[in-house]
C-alpha cells in the first residue's frame, strides 16, 4: 500500500500515478490545464506546481526542495511528502493566472464556455481580480478548423490537449502549433481539416473557450442546462453520455468518464446523432384501426385493450401463432416487461430479436491501432442492447425465432398475432417484414417513426427515444450500464417503461431498479448494474 503526505495529510494512493492525480482524487482543487489522464504529460502549463521534500544533495537530510516541481510529471513514490498550500505554490498559481489572462480578450459575455470555463474558475479561485498589464493585448485570429469546430485563438491557454488528442487518441494528427511565444496558435496542418470521427472531443477537453462546437455555438448559456446521465444508443460500445437540456429541449451530448468503455471520449456520430429524438415527424399518438376507420386511443385503456386483443387471438389460433419482436434499441427492463406481459397471455409465444444493424467492421482508434492497444472503438453493431435482449430471450426460454424466420413465417401467414418493437433512429422495415406484416391478423407496432408497418397494424403505439427513457443496456463487452431519462416524453407519448409496466400489470411508477429486482429472480446478472465511477470533483 502506497502512502504519501499531501498538505500534511497522509493519503493512500497508487504507486506511479502522477502526484496531481493523487491530489485530485483526495478532493484537492489543484489547478491544471495541460494534464489530462487520457493524454501524455507535457507539464507545460506550470499551474500544478508543488513543493516536494527531497534529500539534500550533500547532507542527505530531507527538506523542502528549493524549487517547485510539476505535480503532473512527478510520479507517486511511497513515503513522499508534497504540499500545495505553501505561499510559493499559491504565488505561482496567482502569477500563472495573471499570465494566462494577459492576452485573453475577456469576452466571457459572448463566449460559449462561460459558466464551465476553467479560466473563469481558476481566475476566481486562484488569481487576482486585476491585471497589471497596461499595454495593448496581442490579438490572434479566429479560425475554422473543420466542418464542426471553430477555434478562437485569443482564448487559448496553449495546453495542447487538442493537439495531443489528435495525435494520441484519434491518431489522425491534424492539429499542430504554429508560431512561437505569445503568438503561438493551434492550427490544422496546411490542406487538412479537423474532420476525424472523434474530433468533437477536442471541444470537451479544451479547458477554455478556445475550441467551440459549431452545432452548439450561441445556442444556450451553459448554466441554463440540466443534465441527464444516459448511455449513447448509437452502437454497442455503450458510451456513457450526459444529455444537456433546457426546458425539455436537448442542446448537446457530452461524454461521461467511463473507464474501460469509452474512458473520456465519444464519437461524433453519437455526439451529433441524437437529433432524431426531437424530430417533428415522430409518432405522437396511439392509433387504432377498426376496419377502414382510424381512431386515436387513450393511453389509459390501452394496456387492457392490448391484453384483451392478444387473449382473443390466442384463444382463436393458439399461443404458438403469437410472436414478440424485441428491438435491440429497447432497454433490458422494457424488453423483459413486454415479454413477460405477453407470455402471460400466450405462454408459448415466440420471442424474436429484431434486426441488428451492422457495419462491415469496428472502427478503432488511434487510427491503425490493432485491437489490443485501441483507445476507442466505434462498434460495427449499430444498436445498444443486442446482448441484453439476447440474454433475456435466452433466460425466458420457450420458443424463439430469428428475425428472418419471423418474416418468413409471417409471410406464409403462420403468425396470427405479433408485437413489434422498433425504436430504430433510421428506416428499418425491409420488404419481407412489410410483406409479413400484411398477413398478420393482429399486429401491434411500438415505434418511433411511421413505417410500412403502420398501415397493416391494428394498434400503433408511439415509442420514446433514449433521451426520454430509463433502464439499462448491456454493451458489447457484456457490461450492464444504467441510463436515466433526460427530458420528459414528447407530447402525446408516454415513457415506454411506464406503459410496458402497466401492460405487465405491475402497479406503481416505473423504476428500472424495481424491475431489475424482479428480473434478477430469473437472471441474477441483472441484480447489479455497472454505473461508471464519478471523476474526482476537480478533475476535468
Amino acid at each position: 500500500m502506497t502512502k504519501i503526505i499531501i498538505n500534511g495529510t497522509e493519503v493512500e494512493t497508487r504507486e506511479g500515478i502522477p502526484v496531481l492525480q493523487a491530489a485530485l482524487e483526495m478532493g484537492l482543487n489543484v489547478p491544471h490545464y495541460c494534464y489530462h489522464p487520457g493524454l501524455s504529460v507535457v507539464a507545460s502549463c506550470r499551474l500544478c506546481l508543488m513543493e516536494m521534500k527531497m534529500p539534500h544533495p550533500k547532507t542527505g537530510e530531507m527538506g523542502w526542495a528549493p524549487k517547485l516541481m510539476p505535480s503532473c510529471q512527478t510520479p507517486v513514490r511511497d513515503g513522499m511528502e508534497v504540499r500545495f498550500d505553501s505561499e510559493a505554490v499559491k504565488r505561482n498559481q496567482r502569477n500563472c493566472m495573471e499570465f494566462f489572462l494577459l492576452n485573453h480578450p475577456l469576452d466571457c459575455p459572448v463566449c460559449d464556455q462561460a459558466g464551465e470555463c476553467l479560466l473563469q474558475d481558476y481566475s476566481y479561485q486562484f488569481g487576482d481580480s486585476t491585471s497589471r498589464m497596461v499595454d495593448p493585448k496581442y490579438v490572434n485570429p479566429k479560425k475554422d478548423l473543420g466542418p464542426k469546430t471553430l477555434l478562437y485563438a485569443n482564448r487559448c491557454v496553449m495546453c495542447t490537449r487538442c493537439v495531443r488528442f489528435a495525435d494520441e487518441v484519434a491518431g489522425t494528427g491534424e492539429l499542430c502549433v504554429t508560431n512561437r511565444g505569445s503568438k503561438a496558435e493551434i492550427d490544422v496542418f496546411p490542406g487538412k481539416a479537423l474532420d476525424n470521427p472523434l474530433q468533437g472531443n477536442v471541444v470537451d477537453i479544451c479547458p477554455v473557450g478556445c475550441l467551440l462546437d459549431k452545432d452548439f455555438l450561441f445556442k444556450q448559456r451553459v448554466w441554463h442546462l440540466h443534465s441527464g446521465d444516459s448511455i449513447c444508443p448509437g452502437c454497442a460500445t455503450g458510451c456513457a453520455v450526459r444529455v444537456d437540456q433546457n426546458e425539455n429541449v436537448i442542446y448537446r451530448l457530452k461524454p461521461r468518464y467511463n473507464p474501460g468503455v469509452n474512458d473520456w471520449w465519444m464519437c461524433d456520430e453519437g455526439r451529433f446523432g441524437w437529433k432524431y429524438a426531437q424530430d417533428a415527424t415522430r409518432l405522437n399518438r396511439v392509433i387504432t384501426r377498426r376496419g377502414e376507420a382510424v381512431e386515436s386511443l387513450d393511453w389509459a385503456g390501452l394496456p387492457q385493450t392490448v391484453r384483451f386483443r392478444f387473449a382473443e387471438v390466442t384463444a382463436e389460433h393458439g399461443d404458438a401463432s403469437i410472436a414478440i419482436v424485441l428491438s435491440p434499441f429497447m432497454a433490458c427492463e422494457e424488453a423483459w416487461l413486454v415479454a413477460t406481459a405477453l407470455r402471460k397471455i400466450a405462454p408459448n409465444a415466440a420471442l424474436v430479436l429484431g434486426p441488428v444493424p451492422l457495419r462491415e467492421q469496428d472502427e478503432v482508434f488511434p487510427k491503425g491501432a490493432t485491437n489490443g492497444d485501441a483507445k476507442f472503438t466505434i462498434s460495427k453493431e449499430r444498436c445498444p442492447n443486442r446482448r441484453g435482449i439476447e440474454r433475456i430471450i435466452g433466460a425466458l426460454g420457450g420458443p424463439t425465432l430469428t428475425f428472418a424466420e419471423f418474416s418468413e413465417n409471417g409471410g406464409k401467414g403462420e403468425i396470427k398475432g405479433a408485437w413489434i418493437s422498433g425504436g430504430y433512429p433510421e428506416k428499418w422495415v425491409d420488404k419481407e417484414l412489410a410483406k409479413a406484416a400484411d398477413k398478420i391478423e393482429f399486429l401491434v407496432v411500438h415505434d418511433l417513426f411511421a413505417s410500412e408497418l403502420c398501415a397493416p397494424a391494428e394498434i400503433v403505439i408511439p415509442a420514446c427515444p433514449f433521451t426520454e427513457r430509463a433502464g439499462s443496456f448491456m454493451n458489447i463487452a457484456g457490461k450492464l450500464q444504467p441510463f436515466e431519462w433526460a427530458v420528459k416524453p414528447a407530447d402525446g407519448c408516454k415513457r415506454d417503461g411506464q406503459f410496458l409496466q402497466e401492460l405487465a400489470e405491475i402497479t406503481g411508477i416505473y423504476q428500472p431498479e424495481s424491475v431489475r429486482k424482479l428480473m434478477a429472480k430469473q437472471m441474477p446478472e441483472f441484480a447489479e448494474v455497472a454505473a461508471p465511477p464519478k471523476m474526482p470533483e476537480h478533475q476535468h
Partner: protein
Amino acid sequence: MVRTADPTNLSTYEPILLRHVGVPEARTLEGYRARGGYKAAEKALTQMSADDVIDEVKRANLRGRGGAGFPAGVKWSFLPKDRTVTYLCVNADESEPPTFSNRVLMENDPHALIEGTIIAGYATRATTAYIYMRGEFWEQFHIVQKAIDEAYAAGILGKDIFGSGYGLNVYIHRGGGAYVCGEETGLIESIEGKRGWPRIKPPFPAIEGLFRKPTVVNNVETLCNVPHIIERGADWFLGIGPEGSSGPKLFCISGPVKKPGCYEWAMDISLRELIEDPRFGGGMRDGKKVKAVFPGGISMGVVTGDELDMKMNFTDPAKFGLLGLGTAAAVVVDDSIDIRTVIRNVARFFSHESCGQCTQCREGTSWMFKMTDRLAGNLGRREDLDLLAEVSGNMGMMPGMSICGLSDGAAFAIKTVIKKFRSELEECIARENPEAVKIALEVVN
C-alpha cells in the same frame, strides 16, 4: 570574415582550436592530414578502448562549451551500459546572440569537427551522428558537407574506420533558425521532424533521447577539443588555464571595440583584457567608454563598466550575478547608448524566440517586451521596473517554472539590467512627461 587571434603575437600562447584559421588548405582533407589531422582519431580507434577515451576526457575535465559547462566525459558516462543503439548529436545551432565561435570553427576547420565527432562517437558507441546546424549557416553547411564527403571518400567515415571495425555515419541536419533548438531536447525534437519544443526531463537524453534511444548532445567547440585531449593527454589539457576551467576557449567579442572577432585563450583572462588587450578587442573605438557588457551571450546577464575584472571562466561570472559563462561571447555596450534600447532589444529577442510551451516564459517574455518597448518610447512608469524585476524573477528552471533553461536566460538578461542600471532607468523615467504617459495608457485601456 571574422578576425581571429593575431598570428604575429603568439609569444605566450599557441592557438589550438584556431590553429587552422587563415590556413585555407587545412579545410581540405589532404591539408588537414598533412598538418597532423586524424592522428588523434586513429589513435583513439586503434589503440584505446571506448572507456579509455571516456576516462581521458573525464580526467581532462572538458566542460561543455555550449553554455551550461557540464563535463563532457561525465555526460558520456551517463549512457546506460546495456544500450544497443546510441545517437550522437552535434549542436551547431549556435543561436545565442552574439556568438560566432562555432561558425569560425566550422568555416576554418571542418575536419577538426569531424575528427572530434568520430572520437566522441567511438567513445559513446554511437554509429550515427547528426550535426544540427542552424538554418542561417548556409556557407558553413557546404563547407562541412564537403569535408564529410571527403572523409567518406577516404574511408574516414562510414564502415570500419582506420581498420578498427568501428563505423560512423555523419549527417547534417539543418534547422529552421529557432533559438530554442539549441536546447538539447529541443534540438532532438527538431531532428525527429517535430516542433522544437524542449522535452520534460527526466528521462534525460542519455537515457531516452533521439528516437527514444540513448543520446549524447555536444557542442561543436567541445568536440573540437576532444582530438587534442586524445593526442596530447589530459594532463596537457589540465595545464591550460585555471583549475576547474581548463583547456583552450574561444571568446567572441563584438560591439564598438577596435577589433571585434573570435579569439582563443585560456580561461584566465578577465573581461577587461578581452576588451582592451591589443591581442583581443584592442580597446574601445573612437574613445568611447564601456557602459555595459553582456559577457556570455545575452542570456547570461549583464555586467557594468565597473565590473570588468570578472574572469572569463566557469566560476567567476556567478559572483557578478550572472547565470554562468555561457558561450563566452561578449557584446560591449558603450556610453552613448541608452540602456532602455538595450533592454528593449534583449526583451524583443526573447519574446520572439520563446517557444510558447511554458506559460511563464511564453507570456512573460512578451509582457517584458511590451514594457521595455514602452520604456524605450519614453512612456515608462516607475512601477514597470518593479514589475519587470518581478516577472523576470518568476521565470525559468531555477524557480521551477519552466521545462528548459532558456527562460532562465530570458529572465537573467532583464533581471540583471534592471538591478544594475536601475538608477539610470529611473532617471530616464523621471525625465518623461507624466501627462503623455497618462494619455498614452488611457488610449490603450
